[in-house]
């Protein structure tokens, strides 16, 4: 956890420095803003992980001499087969087509998308997340 946090924060720091250099040499807005955005992208999760890493015991995956017995027990709950990602994907496809070929496709997109969202949520509840 600590190493992941450091890693992300270092990325953010690097882009912060590059952004400053870029701003004071090139005076160009678009690139500066995108570099600042990248810096925040690293610093936000990186800072969050670093904050938590001091309050949590390390993950077994980060311990040099951890064995499977140290991580024994449930890793996580994984979903089995599910039709909803497919329907959501097709909903997105029809939504994109709506923008090109007109609003008559919108009901199909909405029906597919909504049913996928509702179905996915119900499935998660019934599957019983951990």
């Amino acid at each position, binding site marked *: 956890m600590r190493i992941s946090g450091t890693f992300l924060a270092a990325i953010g720091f690097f882009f912060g420095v590059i952004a400053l250099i*870029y701003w004071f040499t090139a005076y*160009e807005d*678009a690139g500066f803003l995108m570099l600042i955005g990248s810096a925040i992208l690293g610093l936000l999760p990186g800072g969050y992980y670093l904050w938590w890493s001091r309050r949590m015991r390390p993950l077994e995956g980060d311990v*040099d*001499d951890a064995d499977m017995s140290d991580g024994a*027990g449930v890793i996580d709950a994984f979903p089995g087969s599910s039709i909803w990602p497919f329907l959501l994907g097709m909903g997105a496809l029809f939504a994109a087509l709506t923008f090109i070929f007109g609003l008559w496709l919108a009901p199909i997109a909405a029906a597919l998308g909504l049913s996928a969202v509702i179905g996915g949520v119900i499935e998660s509840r019934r599957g019983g997340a951990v």
Partner: protein
Amino acid sequence: MTTTVETPELIEPEEPGGPDGHGPSDHGHGGEHAEHGPTGLLKWLTSTDHKVIGKSYMITSLVTFFISGAMALVIRAQLANPTSSLVNFQTYNELFTMHGSLMLYLFAGPFAFGGLANYIVPLQVGAPDMAYPRLNALSYWLYLGGASMMTLSFVVAGGAASFGWVAYAPLSNSINSPGAGTDMWLMSLGLTGFSAIFTGVNLVATVFYLRAPGMTMFRIPIFSWNMLVTGILILIAFPVLFGAVVMLFCDRHFGTHIFSVQGGGVPVLWQHLFWFFGHPEVYILALPYFGIVTDIIPVFSRKPLFGYRGMVFATLSIAALSTGVWAHHMFTTGVVLLPFFSLLSYLIAIPTGIKFFNWVGTMWGGQLSFQTPMLFSIGFLFAFLMGGVTGVLLASPPVDFMTHDTYFVVAHFHQVLIGTTVFAGFAGFYFWYPKMFGRMLNERLGKIHFWLLFIGFWLTFIPQYIVGLKGMPRRVADYLTSNGWTGLNQLSTVGAMVIGVSFLFFLVNLVQSWRKPVLAGDNPWDGGGLEWFTSSPPPHHNFTHLPPIRSERPVWDYNHPEHRKDESHGDKRHREHEKETVGASS
């Protein structure tokens, strides 16, 4: 139905001197963990298993690769003769646009981070699946939707997009590029862009949080490291592309003037946004393939990787620098800061050089064996070296002013991209195919594939460098006899046809492996990563047992206890053993 997955059981290796060289296939794979889901077509539609999704990704991206390759052959046939009229100019523009778009957006990236990485990364880090399996499935369906939309844009009135894969404003606005084909192109980028972002999230979360106990960050194979960094690059780059695509769509349909001078917009802003995506994209396409080669070379050199940490830091520096060099594609616009972008572009040569040094260092003194994956990896080294060196040339603004938009640049990026996505990509395909399908590919056909590809590759692109230096611009559908470019173009066309023929051997190889399977076993290459510990193909949720993970080659340590290299500082027994071996070899 949700199932909980427990940590696999530990299986201790035999003591030194025991039987070695065999995977632990007799330890009861499958069985209780077998999937009880639907079968047939419904299985492919509903599966959230990273292995099924990975295979779907690979098949789809290979199909786009072949469609797009066929377009390249038509382009080369058109250019084989001056004032040729094989296709008309509009069709030619559509062909080179779609060739670039399909290859870059739909083959090169998805083949690596959707296909190989999806399949291999959870296996390499000892995870039962990707971190978000349903999001992973959604990624694939978005990708399939986007890919079909882009490919089918040929059939709409007005034809496919025809402004090059970079869609520069103002050529891509509604006056210069009317028609639904362009809109389909844009929307397809939106869909595949989101698919890539979701895959990036999945890769980062998987590598950060689903590593098996003991699989620390500095023990995961370099391929997984590179996929982690690729995932982060995706998260930096693709949102920018999506933003740019939305802006362009608004310019085309909703009357905004973001990229048009008439309304107070800035056309060159498109280039800034596009290349802020586009240059990291180049490394999104390259880093996974560097990772593949880095995993293959040690196996066929029978040595541990030379300079593991150097490789990791080289990957990180390449990724970091790649986000600060976007405007080296825009030197000739005259509105970018040349020294800044030139310097950062030169700097990328250093970590890339470190990688080359380490690849050569890994092979140095090893027991090399030249099976197909290794041949393709070495082919990658040559191809990428040539592409990289000409890339350093192009980072120099004076050279770039001379060669911008000529065939010199075309040859450069084809050498880089074919070096990575085709040579290294197929190296990975030949390498992991036995793991994915449980059967071997034919070595003889694989070697014929390699040699034809290798010869065709140089024959195609070396003449393009020369014809570029002679002044032939890119994206032209014809030229005059008096230009003196005919001979070189014909050589290049012959080369492209040889590349085309080489892939017939690949297809024959695939068919043969299905009709007359040669079973692979768990670990046909004697590899060292965790993916070689489980059965081929792996059971549902991948592992029932795992070996102790004490180095970056846990399976090698397991199979060859006499060579065990142990970096754990807490485990005294193994440290003593290491001292002895080090003492004996020095």
